[in-house]
């Protein structure tokens, strides 16, 4: 046919929605593939990581009280943060009206751990056992100063909703290793303490403009781990099977008439749905985990929906080949009563996080699993509200904060990047969220500049037009 070559090529590319320079023509074949969760394309180069477990600490944990040790602050108690340090940083409406910005040194003691001597706060005794496995980035920064835009930026590379989540990009780029499970799963846990739980949105694990098959599937702790998984009341598995068989027969007759590959795809999707109906409950059923597992993860781990229970679930998902597991824990927004708030949060998360690392390590899975722990921004060195020797609050701070990485391809036992004496500005090796995402994609074998999707006339990327791989954190 004589459609001009440029038209033909462009059109097909636009129709499939993948740029010729990004995900290639191979995508066409897999788009029509009946295996929904199959990989869209092979990795772009040899991956170090097969999957990511992202332990998302929503609300913004204080770097000053957990990771970024500032011994010099003790002498600065209640002194004003020098204006030269503060610079022109925007403040949130919660402290913009404060007359003073008194320095609040952390009440927590810091110690060195492991062979590497990594400094960590006393509030993370369990995580500290893995000091030689984790790499703390102390110089992460973001632009956003409010939770929603900041979390959206962290998850999608953009402050305004509507773009695909990191996990959706990975699902799009790599697919799932398990034909019966989605590539991207979100788990939400609730803090045990009385805190202001941070908001989460469907779109944080949404597929944005990517096809909806790449969206994260939220597993919940209710009787249906996945929406609409259970048969309606009165429908036995046998009745369901009979219905499926006959619907498939009718669909095949329809396919014979119209030859529409979508019909064939639908037949296959119903089969996959059927398999999910047994695979997912089996996965979510923790009752057959040995008793010592619950001991390792701590007392909360037997309660469905807690961070500890979700950490066990995350390991089970990882074992079954799920590519991207996003586990959310809320409650880190300590504008006031920070010391007690942090204690409560660490009670919920520290032991299970360490248990997860231990289990992954014990099973040899830490070698190909990238674990990320962190929130959407940091907190201020100055106190929000009243400052006393043992109590203070901290406001949002985007200019620097700490997260850690562990596992596949990560050089553990190091702190990367430096902040000034007040943990207010970065003085060495800044890492933007785009850099973090570029690095994580790199570990998965994906070039962040090539993982693109054409939408509204533009090739979009998780890292927008930014992102540099942070090589020093790599093993």
């Amino acid at each position: 046919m004589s459609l001009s070559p440029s038209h033909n090529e462009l059109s097909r590319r636009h129709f499939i929605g993948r740029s010729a320079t990004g995900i290639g023509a191979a995508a066409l074949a897999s788009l029509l593939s009946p295996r929904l969760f199959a990989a869209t394309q092979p990795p772009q180069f040899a991956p170090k990581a097969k999957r990511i477990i992202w332990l998302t600490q929503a609300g913004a944990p204080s770097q000053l009280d957990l990771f970024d040790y500032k011994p010099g602050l003790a002498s600065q108690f209640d002194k004003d943060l020098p204006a030269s340090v503060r610079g022109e940083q925007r403040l949130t409406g919660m402290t913009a009206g404060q007359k003073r910005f008194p320095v609040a040194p952390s009440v927590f003691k810091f110690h060195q751990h492991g062979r590497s001597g990594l400094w960590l706060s006393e509030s993370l005794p369990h995580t500290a056992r893995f000091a030689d496995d984790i790499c703390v980035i102390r110089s992460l920064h973001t632009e956003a100063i409010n939770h929603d835009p900041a979390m959206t930026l962290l998850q999608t590379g953009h402050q305004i909703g509507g773009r695909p989540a990191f996990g959706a990009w990975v699902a799009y780029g790599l697919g799932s290793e398990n034909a019966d499970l989605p590539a991207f799963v979100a788990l939400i846990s609730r803090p045990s303490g009385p805190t202001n739980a941070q908001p989460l949105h469907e779109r944080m694990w949404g597929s944005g403009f990517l096809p909806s098959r790449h969206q994260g599937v939220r597993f919940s702790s209710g009787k249906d781990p996945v929406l609409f998984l259970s048969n309606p009341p009165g429908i036995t598995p046998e009745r369901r099977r009979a219905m499926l068989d006959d619907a498939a027969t009718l669909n095949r007759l329809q396919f014979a008439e119209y030859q529409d590959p979508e019909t064939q795809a639908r037949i296959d999707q119903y089969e996959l749905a059927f398999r999910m109906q047994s695979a997912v409950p089996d996965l979510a059923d923790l009752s057959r985990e040995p008793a010592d597992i619950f001991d390792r993860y701590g007392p909360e781990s037997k309660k469905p929906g807690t961070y500890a229970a979700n950490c066990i679930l995350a390991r089970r998902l990882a074992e079954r080949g799920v590519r991207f597991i996003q586990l959310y824990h809320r409650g880190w927004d300590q504008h006031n009563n920070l010391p007690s708030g942090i204690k409560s949060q660490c009670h919920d998360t520290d032991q299970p996080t360490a248990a997860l690392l231990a289990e992954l390590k014990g099973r040899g899975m830490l070698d190909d699993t990238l674990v990320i722990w962190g929130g959407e921004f940091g907190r201020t060195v100055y106190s929000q509200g009243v400052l006393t020797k043992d109590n203070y609050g901290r406001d949002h701070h985007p200019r620097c904060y700490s997260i850690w990485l562990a596992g596949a391809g990560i050089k553990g036992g190091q702190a990367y990047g430096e902040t000034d004496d007040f943990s207010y500005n970065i003085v060495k090796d800044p890492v933007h969220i785009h850099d973090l995402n570029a690095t994580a994609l790199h570990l998965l074998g994906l070039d962040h500049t090539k993982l693109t999707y054409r939408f509204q006339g533009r090739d979009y990327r998780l890292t927008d037009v930014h992102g540099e791989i942070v090589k020093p954190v790599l093993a």
Partner: protein
Amino acid sequence: MPTESGARNTLKQFDVMTIEKHMKRRLQFTIVWLATLAAARGAEPARPTKVEFSRDVRPILSENCFACHGFDKAARKAELRLDTRAGATATTDGITAVVPGKPNASELIARILTSDVDDVMPPKKSGKHLTATQKETLRRWIEQGATYQRHWSFESPKRVMPSPVPGTAHPVDRFIQARLAAEKLAPSRLADSATLIRRVSLDLIGLPPTTAEVDAFVAATKKDADGAYRQLVDRLLASPHYGERWGRWWLDQARYADSNGYSIDAPRQIWKFRDWVIAALNADMPFDQFTIEQLAGDLLPNATESQKIATGFHRNTQINQEGGIDKEQFRVDSVFDRVATTGTVWLGLTVGCAQCHDHKFDPIEQKEYYRLFAFLNNQDEPTLKVLDPGAGASELTTEFKAIEDKLKAYVKDHADELAKWEAGLTPEIMKSLSPAITKIVAVPMEKRTFAQNKTLFAGGIGGVGPFRLLNDRHTELDTLLNQGVTTMVMKELPKPRKTTVFIKGDFTRPADEVTPGTPAVLHPFEKPAGQPTRLDLARWIVSPQNPLTARVIVNRVWQHYFGRGIVETENDFGLQGTAPSHPELLDWLALEFQKPGGDGVWRLGDGVRNEAPKTFERTAKTPDPGPQTAWSLKSLHRLIVTSHTYRQSSSDRPELRQKDPNNYLLARQQRLRLDGEIVRDVALAASGLLSPKLGGPPVYPPIPDGVMGQGQVKRTWAVSKGEDKFRRGLYTFVYRASPPPSLNVFDAPDGFSTCTRRIRSNTPLQALTLMNDSGFFEFATALEKIIQKDGLETAFRRCTTRAPKSDELAVLKKLDTLNAARALLNLDETVTRE
């Protein structure tokens, strides 16, 4: 124009090494060129001999070169721009990228062919790569004189009448079939009557036909196929459900939803805007007026309430109510969204790309972006209190007063009874009463207000029986008449805000001040005497000189019928967009759309538009369009759906699979999975539960536990009662943060940004939803009753419109009736438009 020798002369300025390198490259060039030519010949035997810039060359340059050698000054490398002929042929430092007629002397050719990794263009790190065919196209383009053309979509549409095709009167078919004939392909046969009535019903009103409608149509078709079809189309276009179906098409573009978004995601009232859209489409409000009222209805002289409601279009942006935010940041973000949405929806241009820098591909400067921004930066964002005009305010007020009198009388007549009840209130009983009631009980009887008595009776002795009935109605009327409905609208500030360019789109970095204006590449903007406003912008958009809007809209309508636009990139008519598959048809449709009347060749019946829908009051300022009105969407729909191209079968054929597997040429129709809302509507209609009620506040059909409550504020979802449980999908309340799962899973948009084309995914979660969602299960149990009462065949017809074949019936008969009903609702055919 530099000559070959002139170009050589300039080489003298080079040092020896450069010359050597240059010579080496020339040699490489010749070898590679020969190889390229051979490869290109092998791959693409049949190609037009004359290279056309817009069709053949610009897409290559735009995709591979313009990012660094295009319109954006700041990003331009080596001072070279290839988006203009002057730029491409200019000589800088002795080097000329394009020497017309002389590819061998053109640096561009040398650089794309070289194997030197340091020199090759596009550079390796860009990730771009030219194919052998593309390189050859560029070479021949230069050889043929390197002529440039203005990008097609910036030129006015040209009226080219389609060449006659024997046996084909309809102009759309002539365009399509002339092209098919050139490819030696034949169109498909007409779809059978049952398929056709289902298709056109789903496309025009979003509901399947009833079995009686099918029978009547099949019978009428036997007598007069065209006449029966014309009548059918007219009936559907006159149906008030037409406005619902096509209203949703527009609401996608308007990014409509019922909450504020961001983390708090509080519910908002803006459904009056949704109803305005439905009413305007039902009244066939001309599209130019439809545009003006939405962008600037409040600025029209003596603006009516309806015209103000219309400005809700640009209030469908998110509002951040999180603590500690800088409100200005989010106001600016919403204006960014309004600029981008206006550009995408009406101009089909990615205007938003120029927010941070000059557009990389299209000739839109960053400054021009902020001139558009200036039109949309001067608004106050109030809410408007409205009384539903359809509610019949005067009658309702009378009823309200009458009921109030009755209630007062009831209270008076039952005072003793109440006193007795109060006397019997033990402390235990008091504890079980609501605080509101106990508070009122403490008030001496004679001092109680009417409202207090009302509450007291409702919570006590009047909880059942006649008082309850009267009281419920009273409360309902009170809400309707006195609490009022509000809707979000636009209002111009008396004093315009100052608008500046924001460096890199950052609102904390204002730069040069700008005044309202439009991009220079498009038709001129006629400056009014005073400060230009949104109204001037709206008028500029619907100006007959605008080459884009009509094309963009007809293309988006076309896309709905065939699954793909004539321009496939329906939201990008710029340089990065695809070229139209049928450019002449696109132009012809665009001109027809704007033209009053028409030449009557294809017009298959008028008068439909004169029939005002009964359910909605005609919007006050909408003149009766009449058959001679331009910009009629209903005429456009009629034009397209009466073509053979639309009416033909969608069955694939072996020769088409081979020659046009993606159906660009439309030798057949296209099967399309239904939109999420319509998946629901079809199941409701098939199971006999559908409520045909139009408009009104959004409703809350059942959703699973745990869907709500991820946000910062726990939202309740009080399931609607009665017929509101069975309303069409477009009336379901949509929280942006937690959209209804059964719609979301079928790719319904989330309302965060404009959606000009829905994705149609096919996933196991859809299967789980249709099988197990309690809503769909309820529909299945209702369909089971139909099977029991009217038989399997009827149920089958209600789902698919056609009669089952014997083997299909045999399969279904093996199942129990509930299972058969579930199988029917889960069929691919049920959720697909053939």
